[in-house]
């Protein structure tokens, strides 16, 4: 291919800090270039660009590149006086298959960033939409919402450019449509209706679903959004029609109407390049109308510009005329915008008074910190507290070994300051991991709404204490179990509106989620005022499912029977509903909470309702560890894994098909002689100590239980090869290292 590229550049490019020589260099890189400079007067770095400055050159370029590629390269100056002619070759054959979209891996850092920010945007959207619902005309709020959608659209588009993920496509579509409706509402100053806001809220709900599906790599069917989107834009148009020019001072509304009629036609005609007689006539007449109108209304600057245009029409180059016309169109638009804003301001003086600049400044009091940094800090604090013990030991050593009692005393006297600072530091660092449970609870209103709609029930949700703080890791872990419990309450607990009416209950069922701190624990209560759990039904079912024998069940108390629902594979609902099979069962709920070192308590009263109480530790950062001895080595075992400890004489150990067992509380416990596996020689003779797991199925044999400590457990350094039983290490006050065994899981 051979091209002739003509540069005829003037002041306009220098005003934009463009150096045309860069483009010449870039073109030279594409192939063989003959450059003929015609005129070159480029301003110096400190020089103000003027009409004197120019760059004119002809370049004949022989290259493999297509016309599109050259145009792309010259994009920024193409309209400022660059012409490209094809001298030789056929452009068609060079056209590359650019459309083939490859799916690439999204860079991890980018993806993390995207997820974090999207969560933030969605929660911000929910808040501002709620505010907007009460003040749908507020342009400030509309702008806030617009900006959120705008950012979401941009970010999502970015990820999409790597891979065409279907959920993201929906997210992109929704944010795009919402953005344009909001933009219109903002730019015309018309505002929104409450119905708009409702639709937007529903869309944000759907965005939530889609985003979740995206994060979990699932596919979410969201074809329903198109109805919502259609409704959104149709409501928008209707509103616009009615409100056009309405409520504005008459002069502005006239200008508004005329401008909105003429400007699109101007643009269209200008894009044609040539005019027939009729179109010329249209220009003349419309300019006269505008001339009259602006004169009447006293917009002198505009009037002058229009007069100039009238004079210029037909006398100057049409392209030039169109450029001037476009300037006028922009000025007109600006004038109309500013007038609308003025009149809005007058109407909304009240609002203006309460105008809150802080809204525009970043509101967040939060600092985003990577989780691993907090973890590092935790580790350092953990080691510091070990060091604290060392100082204490050293002060004793000063007195006894080095014989400097004065120094020892001085050190000891000042230790308490160090101690209290350390405690403070530890507390503060722990607090960094704490987040309010509202991050989880905020999901429930939508969940309850969706579920009750799906199940044909009427449910009111009450949330209390959502500012209670909990370790972030715990919050993440209890999300699924809580969703399951709420789902259970609606599905199995709350009766249908008809049933409730017949029972004389309030038609609307009630679910209450309550969080509060109690000592070193956080308690979350989920209660409903439904029909309660039918204990007799559980008895029957347990026998049917062969979990217990008839006579066993009849001997069990109601409380004990209730515990059966936590056993794997138990469900009392007669028919499988759409919901079952989607989440985790009650057994998983109980397991998850116990693994966190927590407890589940369930209380139920027939026809009055059920309350499930989750008792959770405040934090996972510091764990209770049981120190046990095997041979002459001390190991740690997480205390929450241990259900019971007891000593038993060695001769009680029986052999059952080669497996060592003991009978305990009418059950057979399988014994794990972990010291044998680890190659440690046990020192206990007559009696052994058993650590029994929470479900009373196995016992781990150790020599002795020493004590419990609260400590930070760190993962085993990866350079160390350790048996799978060892899950972490912790450091004791005297600096010795203890392996933590995960043998009861």
């Amino acid at each position, binding site marked *: 291919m051979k091209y002739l590229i003509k540069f005829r550049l003037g002041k306009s490019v220098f005003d934009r*800090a463009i150096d045309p020589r*860069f483009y010449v260099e870039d073109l030279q890189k594409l192939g063989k270039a003959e450059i003929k400079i015609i005129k070159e007067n480029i301003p110096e770095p400190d020089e103000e660009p003027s009409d004197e400055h120019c760059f004119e050159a002809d370049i004949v370029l022989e290259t493999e590149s297509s016309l599109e590629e050259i145009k792309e390269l010259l994009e920024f100056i193409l309209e400022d006086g660059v012409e490209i002619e094809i001298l030789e070759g056929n452009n068609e054959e060079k056209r590359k298959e650019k459309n083939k979209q490859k799916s690439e891996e999204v860079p991890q850092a980018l993806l993390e960033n995207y997820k974090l920010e999207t969560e933030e945007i969605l929660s911000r959207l929910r808040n501002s939409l709620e505010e907007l619902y009460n003040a749908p005309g507020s342009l400030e709020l509309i702008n806030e919402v617009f900006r959120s959608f705008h950012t979401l659209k941009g*970010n999502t588009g*970015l990820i999409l450019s790597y891979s065409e993920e279907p959920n993201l496509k929906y997210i992109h579509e929704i944010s795009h449509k919402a953005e344009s409706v909001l933009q219109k509402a903002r730019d015309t100053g018309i505002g929104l209706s409450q119905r708009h806001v409702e639709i937007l809220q529903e869309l944000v709900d759907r965005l939530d679903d889609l985003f979740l599906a995206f994060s979990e790599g699932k596919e979410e069917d969201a074809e329903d959004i198109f109805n919502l989107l259609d409704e959104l834009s149709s409501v928008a148009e209707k509103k616009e029609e009615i409100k056009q020019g309405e409520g504005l001072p008459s002069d502005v509304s006239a200008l508004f109407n005329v401008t909105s009629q003429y400007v699109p036609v101007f643009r269209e005609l200008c894009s044609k390049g040539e005019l027939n007689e009729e179109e010329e006539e249209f220009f003349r007449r419309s300019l006269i109308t505008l001339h009259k109108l602006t004169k009447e209304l006293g917009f002198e600057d505009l009037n002058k510009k229009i007069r100039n245009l009238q004079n210029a029409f037909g006398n100057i180059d049409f392209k030039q005329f169109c450029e001037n016309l476009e300037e006028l169109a922009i000025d007109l638009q600006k004038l109309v915008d500013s007038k609308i804003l003025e009149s809005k301001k007058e109407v909304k003086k009240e609002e203006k008074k309460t105008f809150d600049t802080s809204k525009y*400044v970043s509101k967040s009091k939060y600092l985003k910190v990577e989780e691993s940094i907090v973890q590092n800090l935790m580790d350092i604090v953990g080691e510091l507290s070990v060091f604290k013990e060392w100082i204490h030991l050293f002060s004793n050593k000063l007195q006894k070994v080095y014989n400097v009692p004065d120094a020892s005393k001085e050190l000891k006297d000042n230790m308490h300051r160090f101690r209290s600072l350390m405690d403070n530091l530890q507390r503060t660092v722990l607090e960094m991991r704490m987040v309010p449970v509202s991050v989880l609870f905020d999901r429930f209103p939508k969940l309850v709404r969706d579920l009750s709609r799906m199940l044909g029930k009427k449910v009111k949700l009450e949330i209390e204490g959502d500012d209670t703080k909990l370790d972030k890791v715990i919050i993440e872990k209890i999300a699924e179990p809580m969703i399951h419990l709420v789902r259970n309450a609606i599905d199995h607990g709350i009766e249908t509106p008809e049933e409730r009416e017949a029972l004389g209950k309030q038609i609307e069922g009630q679910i209450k989620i309550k969080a509060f701190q109690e000592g070193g624990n956080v308690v979350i209560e989920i209660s409903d005022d439904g029909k309660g759990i039918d204990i007799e039904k559980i008895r029957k079912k347990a026998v049917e499912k062969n979990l217990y024998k008839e006579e066993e069940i009849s001997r069990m108390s109601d409380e004990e029977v209730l515990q059966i629902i936590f056993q794997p594979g138990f469900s009392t609902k007669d028919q499988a509903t759409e919901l079952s099979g989607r989440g985790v069962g009650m057994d998983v709920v109980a397991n998850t909470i116990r693994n966190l070192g927590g407890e589940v308590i369930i209380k139920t009263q027939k026809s009055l309702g059920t309350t499930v109480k989750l008792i959770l530790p405040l934090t996972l950062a510091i764990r209770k560890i049981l120190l046990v001895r095997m041979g002459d080595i001390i190991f740690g075992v997480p205390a929450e894994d241990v259900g019971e400890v007891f000593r038993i004489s060695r001769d009680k150990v029986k052999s059952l098909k080669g497996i060592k067992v003991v009978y305990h509380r009418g059950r057979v416990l399988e014994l794990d002689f972990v010291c044998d596996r680890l190659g440690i020689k046990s020192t206990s003779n007559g009696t052994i100590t058993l650590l029994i797991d929470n479900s009373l199925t196995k016992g781990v044999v150790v020599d002795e239980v020493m004590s419990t400590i609260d400590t930070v457990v760190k993962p085993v350094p990866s350079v160390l090869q350790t048996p799978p039983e060892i899950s972490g290490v912790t450091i004791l006050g005297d600096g010795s290292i203890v392996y933590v065994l995960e043998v009861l899981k």
Partner: protein
Amino acid sequence: MKRALAVDDSATMRNLVKIALEAEGFTVDTAGNGQEALELAKKNNYDIVISDINMPVMDGLQFLKEFREINKRTPVLMLTTETEARKKEEAKRLGATGWIVKPFKPEDLVKVVKRVVR
């Protein structure tokens, strides 16, 4: 070492620009809106400025206008979207050197930046 200023209210975009340009050996400062950017631009000399248009407090076009009043020689690239043709024109009029259409990948950005800074 070349110095760049990235202005965007979206942290994702800001970081994308930062990562892309740092890989090319730039030192990159960032600002979350036009106001912040303008303050930085008054204090430091940048070889290139890359700014979003829609931003709170001070938008990209206003920033561009005020920036050009104090600096005519630093290239400014605006981040636009496909649908903002009019804003592109306005940006050109106000002295924008060029633009990058969102969404873009780091390599697209680098390509455009290299077109306007040497």
